[in-house]
């Protein structure tokens, strides 16, 4: 992706929001995150890809909620009261990411991001742009532009 957020271009320290899906840790650039909400039920969309859980009402705005686990090929998330929706703003669209839990806000140096290991499946290669080593855990940085539902391809 050629498109970069301003933070990626200028700062040598960026803040990331880390969260977990199953046993794995992931992160998003904090610049994309608008807010974090508890799980609310959604309205099912007809003919939507499986990873689109439905539409939610965020103070009058209608936005889709994506099951990140499903999107990443980690299996379907069964939403429960502890589940969390991260509201993010990506490419001029607002979207909710359904994840298991939000863990932390971390400050990292983008230069420290390591490339995704070569063992990658197609999905890993497409959606994970790199990893940060945080003590003994690996935090996978999500490529937000790729993770969004792709127009037309997912439509149906």
């Amino acid at each position, binding site marked *: 992706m050629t498109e970069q957020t301003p933070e990626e271009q200028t700062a040598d320290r960026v803040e990331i929001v880390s969260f977990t899906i199953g046993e794995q840790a992931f992160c998003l650039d904090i610049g994309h995150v608008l807010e974090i909400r508890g799980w609310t*039920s*959604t*309205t*099912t*969309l*007809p*003919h*939507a*890809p499986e990873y*689109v859980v*439905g*539409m*939610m*009402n965020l*103070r*009058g*705005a*209608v*936005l*889709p909620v994506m099951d990140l686990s499903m999107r990443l090929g980690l299996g379907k998330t069964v939403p429960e009261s502890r589940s969390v929706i991260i509201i993010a703003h990506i490419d001029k*669209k*607002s*979207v909710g990411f359904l994840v298991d839990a939000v863990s932390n806000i971390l400050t990292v140096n983008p230069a420290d991001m390591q490339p995704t290991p070569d063992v990658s499946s*197609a*999905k890993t290669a*497409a959606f994970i742009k790199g990893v940060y080593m945080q003590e003994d855990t690996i935090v996978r940085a999500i490529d937000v532009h*790729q993770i969004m*539902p*792709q*127009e*037309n*391809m*997912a*439509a*149906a």
Partner: protein
Amino acid sequence: MSDLRDMFFEECDDLMEVLSSGLDDLQNGNGDAETINAMFRSVHSIKGGGGAFGLDRLINFAHAFENVLEDLRSERIEADHGLIALMFSAFDHLSDLVDAARDDLEIAEHAGASILADLHQVSAPEGGTTSDSAEVDVADFVPLTLDIGGEDGASIPLPDLNFDLSAPAEDTSGTPAFAIEFSADPGLYSRGHDPALLFRALSELGTLTARVDTTEVLPLNEVGDHFSALTWHLNLLPAAGVEEDDIREVFEFVESQCVLEIATTFLHEDDTPLAELPALAGLPDEPDGGTAGDTPTTPIPTSKPSKGGKPAEVKPDTGKKSEPRNSTIRVDLDRVDRLINLVGELVISEAMLRQSMNELPVSANSSVSEAIGQLKTLSGVLQESVMAIRAQPVRGLFQRMSRIMRESSRTAGKDARMLVVGDSTEVDKTVTERLVEPLTHMIRNSVDHGLETAEDRIQAGKPAQGTIKLEAAHRSGRVVISLTDDGAGINREKVRAIAEARGLVRAEDDLTDSDVDNLLFRPGFSTADTVSELSGRGVGLDVVRSEIQALGGRINLQSDPGKGTTITISLPLTLAVMEGMLVTIEGESLVVPTVALRETLQPGQANVHDFCDGDRGLSMNGEILPIVDLGEALGFRTKLSTLENQALLLIEGESGRRSALAVDTIIEQREVVIKGLEQNYQSIPGIAAATILGNGKIALIVDTDQMIPTAGQSQLSLLTGQEHAEVA
């Protein structure tokens, strides 16, 4: 500068509106002196603004137009049929010029040349007064033009005085008058004072004449920046009770920056006629133009020497006589929309609050429920008021349509006039914008096919000039716009014959007159080759209909053979809200737009017929309609074994085709706020938009047109692409 420019063009819109309604009034015989004054002021302001931005063509044309209006104002010419027609053309061209200037477009050199020539011809019957109109100097429109005329000739936008100031002061037999000599120090200008304003104030004290002495004016190349070489000789014929002190008061603020001498003199009845002071209404005012050249005493065009030998009355400041304008502000549409969105969210939050209150056991707590009741009322009023901001009168739209009518009647060689009723009716801005095309289409249609030729009209006992009436009104929460012509009406036999030939109806079908009329809206009825066959109308009306329906509107046509045709459009007040039927399918709430809804019914099994692949049809009035299970079409469930417990909604699409939608239950009809899906997601087949219900849940709005199968299309393939491709 670009801000100023934008402001000027926005003002132009308003001014053109005034001009246009003035023309309408004149045409309908409602015009009076004030109408013409208002029109004059409009053209004048456009010219003045155009001067500030160096729009020479605009100025030239506006100036010629203005001269005609001035002649009209001073009753030198009369507003007869021909002149009004000319002024309408001039109006059209002027608005073209304004548009071109706004968008920096070039207009063909010859465009409007004939209109300009006609204007000149009309305005200069006695010759002379407007001969310089084509060379108007831009600089003349800068307030207080210190135009020193290039060479020796000095001209200032003030008239001369053909009157000898040296009238013997000792002669006390005439009317007392004041001779005022005024010359400004450079400081007067640098402090922002303007002699013209002072003189205007003076003119309110009586009859004022002025002459400027330019003998001290230096050649241009010797003029320093402290230039002040003009001396004005003013003569004031005071109104009753005006004393010298009153005059001094006018100059109070400039006393230290000028040389002022006031002497009392006397006028005789037989004195040389005075040039009247032009209405100093709006600065910049009437130009004499540097072009007047070497005769500093040439009367300026507007100030014809009065005939009777009596001093002419100073015209009152016409600018002050205009009706008080509603004070308005201009706001960016984005801001308004943001406000509307916020209020929409507020209303939804309020509904959610109310709903959760009802679920609480403490609902007996009356003070809380009272407060919530108040909140509901307030948020409702708030929403209405905010929506009203987006509403604007259809006047602008109607004026555009008047022009379309004039142009198409000219092309068609028919004489027609437009009657506009209810142009102050307010409609959402987006609606008015999207009405332009369908209305244009309808008006062209009316002129081309509705109105007869003048000979036919006379033969039918109608006035030779056709009338097309465009009317707008609010009716039961909707806007109704109707277009009526007094033409020949629809030739139903021909329409029916064509419809039968095209297989739209069968020969044995029993159709009412209105059914036949509305066949014109059917796609496939109007194709190019029907135009020549059909003496009535019917060109592309299906396009009009689909555009109106896209706005959530309905269109209907009524025709009275020999007397005319009326097309009525009924529209929602705003695009943000629509009427819908709330239904449930498999626990999901969905909304079916009422626009498409014709009937709801509970089918008896006897009326439902099975076909291949589980397709079902509903027999109704001898017709078999396809049944579409909405739940199945949207992928909420697989095929139902029976429709026994289903409710059916009979819908009719834009194409006029019908089908029955099967749903689980019908809840109620309600107004819903439309929320687009594309903004944060993408369009979904079968779904037009979403809305938020009182409990905060989202309900999807069904796109009914996609739910009507066409021949050879199975129910399941209604919505394309059953599989979706994963992004690898």
